[in-house]
């Protein structure tokens, strides 16, 4: 692969394809609305007032820029490369999701839409959507699998406090995948007045492009901050990948920096051999789910499999098409981290750095710690700490409880 071949700004093509991935695989009812949405988004992106308004919200409402934090004690414990954490957990609502939500909610009002719907897995995107809906005075309904409603009770309550309606989804695996199906069914029905605020860099065109664009700020900041703090670009950039929004946001500005190794971390669940995981890129095959072509966990008959992860946000059998494209190109690599490894990283970060990451982000941290040990002390790793872990404390307590209450000892320092 040559640097000249990488032209991320040229993708997706006008039909929404990233190579053979992406596109618009949706019922005809949604085709004209998706074209309208794309047109409205391109017009907004070209409008200085829109960009200024979004910038203002990101700065004064969401709290950007987020710091790039040198995790010194964690670095010392690993004994290798210096580990920096991109602190999206410090964003308003506690995760990177707010970046995308503010952009899309602003677009929704610009388009004159009167109602917002969203899907959510961990509840982070649901909370962010409910927040933006409150801010813009729009009614908001959030579809959430009933399994996730149960394991993310705190976020469900937060959404309700923000004035949103949470609709538990009982179909299929009752997780994120089914919440997306139900949100799409709502959208097909109410498409004329409703804005579908999709939360990840997936779905039909223009969503993967739009969500990426709204999340790019993560990588743009991290790239500049790396230069300021270390005088150079990082050697390795790591983020967790469910649908892939925080990862594409962090990775994208580094694509042409060929010295930077880029690794997405998927949910290893009980291990890839167990079949209970969320590693679409690591163990899936090419298929069509939720409006775009990408890698999908499925059986030989093309029936989509149920994913598994301790983290609700990674519990998804698909992945955004741009990830699939750069995976096949070899520009991004993908690894997986098991539930147990993520839990351990969660505790390590808590004890060594006083940070409780979201279980999603703990996957990225776990991989980064392993990688840092193999790297030189002069090298640096940037980890996307996509969200805070308050929402997961209950899940962590439950998981550790089933382990006879034995809290895993942190790695020796």
């Amino acid at each position: 692969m040559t640097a000249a071949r990488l032209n991320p700004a040229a993708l997706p093509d006008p039909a929404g394809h990233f190579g053979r991935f992406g596109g618009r695989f949706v019922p005809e009812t949604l085709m004209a609305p998706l074209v309208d949405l794309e047109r409205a988004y391109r017009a907004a992106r070209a409008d200085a007032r829109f960009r200024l308004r979004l910038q203002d919200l990101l700065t004064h409402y969401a709290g950007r820029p987020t710091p790039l934090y040198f995790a010194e004690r964690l670095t010392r414990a690993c004994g290798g490369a210096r580990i920096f954490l991109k602190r999206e957990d410090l964003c308003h609502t506690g995760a990177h999701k707010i970046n995308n939500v503010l952009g899309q909610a602003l677009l929704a009002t610009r388009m004159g839409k009167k109602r917002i719907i969203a899907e959510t897995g961990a509840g982070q995107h649901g909370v962010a959507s409910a927040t933006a809906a409150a801010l813009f005075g729009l009614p908001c309904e959030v579809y959430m699998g009933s399994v996730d409603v149960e394991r993310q009770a705190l976020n469900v309550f937060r959404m309700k406090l923000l004035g949103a309606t949470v609709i538990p989804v009982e179909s299929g695996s009752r997780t994120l995948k089914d919440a997306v199906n139900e949100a799409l069914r709502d959208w097909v029905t109410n498409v004329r007045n409703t804005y579908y605020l999709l939360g990840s860099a997936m779905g039909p065109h223009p969503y993967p492009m739009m969500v990426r664009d709204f999340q790019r700020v993560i990588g743009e900041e991290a790239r500049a901050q790396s230069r300021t703090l270390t005088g150079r670009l990082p050697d390795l950039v790591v983020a967790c990948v469910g649908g892939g929004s925080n990862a594409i946001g962090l990775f994208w500005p580094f694509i042409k920096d060929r010295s930077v190794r880029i690794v997405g971390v998927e949910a290893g669940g009980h291990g890839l051999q167990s079949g209970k995981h969320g590693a679409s890129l690591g163990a899936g095959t090419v298929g069509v789910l939720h409006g775009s072509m990408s890698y999908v966990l499925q059986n030989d008959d093309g029936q989509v499999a149920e994913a598994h992860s301790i983290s609700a946000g990674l519990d998804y059998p698909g992945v955004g098409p741009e990830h699939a494209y750069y995976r096949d190109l070899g520009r991004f690599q993908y690894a997986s981290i098991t539930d147990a490894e993520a839990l351990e990283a969660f505790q390590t970060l808590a004890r060594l750095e006083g940070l409780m990451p979201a279980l999603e982000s703990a996957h990225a941290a776990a991989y980064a710690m392993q990688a840092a040990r193999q790297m030189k002390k002069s090298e640096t790793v940037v980890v996307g700490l996509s969200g805070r872990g308050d929402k997961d404390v209950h899940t962590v307590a439950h998981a550790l409880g089933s382990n006879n209450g034995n809290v895993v000892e942190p790695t020796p320092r």
Partner: protein
Amino acid sequence: MTRLEATFTSLRARGERALIPYFTAGDPSLALTGKLVVEAARQGADIIELGIPFSDPLADGPVIQRATQRALQAGVTLPRVLELVRELRAEVSVPLVFLTYYNPVFAFGLKAFCQTAVEAGVDGVIVADLPPEEAGPLQAEARPAGLDLIHLVAPTSTPARMRKIARASSGFIYLVSLTGVTGERTELPSDLLQHLRTLRGITAKPVCVGFGIGNPEQAAVVGRFADGVIVGSAIVRVVEEQSGSPALIPEVGRFIAALKAPLRAT
């Protein structure tokens, strides 16, 4: 002339409209789906749609979602439905059309799917999440194999899109009556006739209307303006209610006869 073309030509000559019932293949079992198809043809169905179950049927309402779940739990796969069609061809001569989502077809392999389907006796395929923009690869295999690729027009389709869809569609054009998922509705949408008229002004191909049509009265109204009437959820609901009962086949047969009655020449 394909079997679908021949059907519409003959119906038009008789001043009749097509009744197109839908069954989810394998609900409650493949054997019973076979019997339902035979009975439907006997009671006046002109074309029969067979739904290939997919795990994530995002264009379907609760009734067909449940049928899909039952079929998947019963172990129904695309190869087994193709096998059923091959067996049915000894007894049934009406056109058979698959209705599915893209992923099961893609997983089977586009070329293999088109060839196997035609060999088995399938006449056409409707892919709920495959607009013409993405249909190139399937179209490229369907046309030489002789499989009609039937596209859908929606109430949100612009005239420009209608033209594109009408050009791409073969066999007939599936006009979705409403913005929403499959399922019965108490009223027909008020703008249906307007959409139908616009589409008629664009194409001479047969137009069949589906989504939200659940009783003979509604079929009669739609039949005055369309070449065919597609009934899905209302029939699947009867299958669900009569599942396990000896009355299943005769009840569905009676319902289909009642739906066809207003579509016959007067």
